[in-house]
């Protein structure tokens, strides 16, 4: 029998495979003479194996999208998706600053709403390939879908006689829930967006409010359950013409 001192730490290092080989031999010799201890060490070893069997499959699971979100995956700012995020932030800042005067123009909530509408306009209207989620060819589906998500019956105005055709629409996150964006375009490719949110009960109707900074103009108003913001890179007169038409169609 070995006279070598074997400690508890040796057992663990043995189980974890970090014991030098010479020491392993000594531990094995020690355990060979002590079946109870050998059984205990064997059980520890099986624990290691069982832990791997139980949890190793996690390694092969696809990593959820949320764990690949911008913070950890800041690979390069030049990748398109990060560029888009940066664009959002920059545009948000620029427009927030540009439209800052709107805060004084009306209730703070409405100004924030107009600012969001303007940001959404600036982000999506230049899109060439994916300006909308659902195209105008599926107009019924688009309206039903967005109505369902907003929890209010929407109507999509037709602006053909003003020279604007519907491109389609998309669902966006607003301050208090889903928001709908409809996009229109004229023959020259100028785009208008109509941003619609469902208001909380008791929202008061407002008159048209207008803000224009640089090239982006926004008309916004509240009409019963719904709030609207119409944005475009055009002058006030043209935007008012369209906004009036929109308002009339929604309130026949």
């Amino acid at each position, binding site marked *: 029998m070995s006279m070598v001192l074997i400690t508890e730490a040796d057992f663990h290092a043995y189980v974890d495979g*970090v014991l030098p080989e010479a020491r392993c031999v000594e531990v094995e010799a020690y355990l060979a003479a002590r079946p109870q201890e050998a059984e205990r060490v064997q059980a520890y070893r099986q*624990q290691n194996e069982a*832990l791997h069997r139980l949890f190793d499959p996690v*390694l092969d699971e696809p990593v959820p999208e*949320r764990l690949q979100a911008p*913070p950890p*995956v*800041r690979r390069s700012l030049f990748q398109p998706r990060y560029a888009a995020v940066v664009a959002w932030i920059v545009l948000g800042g620029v427009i927030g600053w540009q439209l800052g005067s709107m805060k004084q123009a009306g209730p703070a909530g409405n100004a924030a709403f107009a600012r969001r509408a303007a940001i959404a306009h600036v982000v999506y209207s230049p899109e060439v390939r994916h300006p909308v989620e659902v195209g105008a060819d599926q107009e019924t589906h688009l309206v039903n879908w967005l109505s369902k998500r907003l929890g209010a019956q929407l109507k999509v105005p037709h602006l053909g006689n003003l020279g604007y055709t519907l491109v389609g629409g998309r669902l966006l996150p607003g301050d208090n829930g889903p928001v709908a964006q409809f996009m229109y375009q004229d023959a020259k490719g100028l785009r208008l967006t109509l941003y619609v949110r469902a208001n909380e009960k008791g929202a008061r109707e407002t008159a048209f409010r207008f803000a224009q900074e640089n090239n982006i103009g926004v008309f916004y108003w509240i009409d019963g359950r719904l709030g609207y913001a119409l944005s475009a890179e055009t002058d006030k007169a043209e935007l008012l013409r369209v906004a009036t038409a929109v308002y009339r169609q929604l309130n026949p």
Partner: protein
Amino acid sequence: MEKLGTQVIPHIPRLRRYARALTGERAAADDLVQDTLERACNKFHLWRRGSDLRAWLFTIMHNVFINQVRGRAVIPTVPLNDEIMELPAHSAHVDRLEIRDLDAALARLPDEQREVLLLVALEQLSYEETAKALGIPIGTVMSRLSRARERLRCIMAGLPEVTTLKVVK
């Protein structure tokens, strides 16, 4: 700074594995990973280039986990997890039952023992790395490891849990 993502990505699956074993629940585990990644991102300047990023990430996860545990009024129960039950069976049915027992048994270990056991046995960190990651002396690592393994063995074998261990010298 922009290098963080590239460097962290290869570690995410293992962070998830550890978090899953630690929390026993898929959603809670991914929350833990997410919080860890966010904190790592914010504190990336504190990471010493060239040092072991993985150990550093485990340190952060440990801190996040401890804060979460402290923030909880009640000790969480561990639900029988559907995902775990649907894992591919590696061997016989009996073995799967044992595996689920292991999951439940793990949950019965004190957090500090479970952390040490999982970092050593599952994540295969060295004892020194484990001590560093958890901010405890290596002697504490060894004693917690010893207690965790023995307690787990007793739970799995249906033996009364011993509180003191014979130190073989």
